[in-house]
């Protein structure tokens, strides 16, 4: 098991900067996820670690060994490709045994080891099948077994679940998680699915446009997004424009105004009186009440229910307001009887759960 360390790594394709000055360190035995939309550079980063690309600048270390110039076939990483890349002309056994044969293992040991590995991923007895005779989930396990069997220094998973159906995806991700913990193998996981990332990772790096925006554990990423993009990409977030009316640098208190309601909040960043800010708030942190129940102490926004969306556990209300559509989630079944589509309601904001972003950064909210 190794630590993987990237220092100021940049990779360009022509004029496009795919990976822009990226640095991070993956600890031994950790499951580290690169999360971001397609084209954000996460797969390129993974391929840089696997050695399929050379960085234009920056260094990649396995422990303290600089691997920049090490070709992929010498890095001893185990990679699982998005499409599994199972060799169609080889049986399951030969697919898994491939790496061991290359390492000149004696045949008898190979047989035993492959068997062990297939048992571990739950594919005992399928040695003689061809990949085309397996289901999607089974193909995925073969790919995983093939990568793990060589006891790689680091396991690289490139969107391994994206070709599976929703149910299987959830099952496989917990299996991968358990397997990874059991083997204690350093793992780098690439996905665009934020729910998957939150559920499986020890730590997450959120990427956009070749840059890492935030690194943290799942709870931190979800509850404390440091960037407006992260706030928007992880989960669902409402954005409401506001303006700074008072800022006390010493007391770290900020007062902002939505419409003509004031909100006072602790604020550790930098701000100036008079600038526009965006406040972000999760749908589950909002409440709705009828017009007659307008709260006296909390800020609120008036709107009209545009859509009631029953999502199983929760009900999502999409409410038309002067700030655009605002989504409110509630699990209170009683509200179902209370409001209909078209009703005028009041959205109550809890000042504790809002986050304030002063800069739009590179990201635009449309």
């Amino acid at each position, binding site marked *: 098991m190794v630590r993987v360390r990237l220092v100021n790594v940049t990779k360009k394709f022509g004029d496009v900067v795919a990976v822009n000055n990226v640095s991070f360190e993956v600890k031994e035995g950790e499951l580290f996820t690169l999360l971001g939309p397609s084209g954000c550079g996460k797969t390129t980063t993974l391929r840089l670690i696997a050695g399929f690309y050379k960085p234009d600048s920056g260094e990649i270390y396995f422990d303290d060994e600089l691997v920049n110039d090490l070709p992929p076939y010498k890095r001893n990483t185990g990679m699982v490709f998005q499409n599994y890349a199972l060799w169609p002309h080889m049986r399951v056994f030969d697919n898994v045994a491939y790496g061991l044969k*290359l390492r000149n293992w004696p045949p008898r040991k190979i047989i035993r080891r492959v068997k062990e590995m297939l048992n571990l991923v739950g594919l005992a007895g399928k040695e003689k099948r061809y990949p085309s005779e397996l289901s999607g989930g089974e193909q995925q396990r073969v790919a995983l077994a093939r990568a793990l069997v060589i006891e790689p220094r680091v396991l690289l998973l490139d969107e391994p679940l994206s070709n599976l159906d929703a149910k299987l995806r959830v099952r496989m991700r917990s299996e991968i998680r358990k397997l990874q913990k059991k083997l204690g193998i350093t793992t780098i996981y690439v996905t665009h699915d934020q729910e998957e990332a939150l559920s499986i990772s020890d730590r997450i790096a959120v990427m956009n446009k070749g840059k890492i925006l935030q690194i943290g554990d799942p709870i931190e990423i979800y509850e404390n997004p440091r960037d407006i993009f992260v706030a928007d990409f992880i989960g669902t977030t409402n954005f409401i424009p506001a303006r700074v009316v008072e800022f006390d640098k010493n007391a770290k208190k900020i007062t902002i105004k939505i419409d003509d309601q004031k909100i006072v909040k602790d604020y550790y960043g930098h701000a100036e009186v008079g600038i526009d800010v965006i406040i972000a708030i999760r749908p589950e942190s909002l409440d709705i009440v009828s017009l007659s129940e307008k709260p006296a102490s909390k800020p609120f926004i008036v709107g009209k229910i545009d859509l009631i969306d029953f999502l199983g556990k929760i009900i999502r209300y999409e409410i038309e307001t002067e700030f655009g559509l605002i989504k409110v989630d509630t699990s209170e079944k009683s509200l179902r009887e209370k409001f209909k589509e078209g009703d005028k309601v009041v959205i109550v904001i809890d000042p504790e759960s809002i986050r304030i972003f002063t800069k739009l950064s590179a990201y635009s909210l449309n």
Partner: protein
Amino acid sequence: MFHWLSRMIDLKELFTRRFLEEKNITLIALIINIVLLAFIVLPIFAILVKAFITTRGISLENFIIFWSNSYYREALYATFMAALFTVITTSFIGIPLAYILVRYDFPGKNFFSVLVLVPLIMPPFVGALGLYKILGISGVMNIILVNMFHILDKPINFLYGDMLLFALSDYDKIYLPYGIVLINTLHLYPLIYLNCAASLSNIDPSLEEQAENLGSRGFHLFRTVTFPLMRPGWMAGAVLVFIWTFSDLGTPLIVHYFKMLSVIVFFKLYEITAGNPSPVSYVIGFIMVIMSFITLFISRKYISLRKYVMLFSGGRQVRRIHKPSGVKLILVYLFLTSLSLSALSPHIGLTLVAFSKRWVLTLIPEEFTLDNFVYVTPLAAPFIFRSFIYSLIAAVIDIALGAFIAYIVSRKLFVGGDLIDLVATLPLAVPGIIFGLGYWALFYKVPLLDPLSYTPIILTISYSMRRLPYTVRAAYAGLLQIDEALEEASINLGATRMKTFRRITLPLLVMNLFAGGILSFINALIEVSTTFLLVVTDRYAPTTWFLYFRALADPRRGLAIASAVGFLFVVIIAVALFITNKILGSRMGSVFRL
């Protein structure tokens, strides 16, 4: 039980409804079936049956006659060896060529990718003609080796002759006709190259990256992953090369190497018209049919493999292209240059001979002239005219049949469409000799179809059947790109399927059909084996027949005027292929694939 019954009713209802609504389509399908049956399936079948018919009823006697003659046995061995070795040599050229041109990027790549395809614009027997003055007994190679560098004592005919591989017994010696292997290698390696290149560029890059990730590299990577994945393409090309060489008539005739199965069939043809059909011909026909079926079967198996290679998709595709440098780059250029020169040598030889006045014991002709063309053109004119008429009609038939067959198969209009597809593809694998022989077996003395009295009709039919796969494939390729929803929209608005086909599908398909038609046309133009087998007299003969039996037979300057006719051929084909390429573009390669 009930479920099964209700399905039956469904099927019946579907069938009757379809028949009532789409009588025309059904009728056309019926005609296509009859045509394919009469002119492709039955002739093959006739040979298979006649091989067993003897004066004493059905028996293996014909096979015993064939096998007890050591000359026939040796011809069988020689033919087999020629085919086998040609597959080996073309593979040794075609596979590295595909790898280089698909995986490497270097200056001049596009130039070479065109140049290495040049053999395709040469009818094989014309290529052999062009090599006369290069590798023949008085050819340039001998002048260099004997007269200039004194490496050899006396000249060798590189085109004619064989070498003993091994002897099974005193009467069973296995010879390799190296001249035939050489000529066919230079002509056929593009088939291996095109098929391998197609397979190679279809390989999902991640399959090779995964192997690298696990520690594989270099030749190990090629052997364990890359080559197995391109094997379907290689197999398809190898099948074409094998069958072609195994049944090729033109090349052995031109180099005067007669101990080949195809030549035996050809020389025994007169026995049929003499009312005494040779049992040996049908035995040879039987062997050839079985050979092509076996190879076709093998390749089909691999083609199904090719399908499941494509099954894996998704993920990003990073094309694996390297820029070679240093020694590697020099080797690449060396390989490509020597290959291109070899591939061009028949063309160079042909051109030089065609324009030469006198060419004896010198490296290039001493004097150039247009005399050969002036002399031969009036003689060849009626034959060329007939060739054009036959080939044109054949191409038109192919376009009509091809359009409907591809439509029926691709839109799955009828049960058994796959079978129609298989039969229509059969001519790619079944040699021309079989068609010629089969037509004699089936249509001799049949009104309107008898090769003896109705040569033009049966010849045209044989051309169109032989080249049917080209239009079927071109049309099929086009249909795959036409969204079925376009047709459904038309049917939804009330048009019948027939009307939809005419108004919507056909106009979108016209360019593909035209391109396929051109390919059918030029291939009919250069058809040798069926022509030689079906044509008996000058009166109805096309150009290839004239070239061999009249021009080349001219005692005074046969080679020169035959080369002049050959040169005209090459020009016509080059123009036609250029037009086709403009239309089909990158899809052109698919026409030469199995």
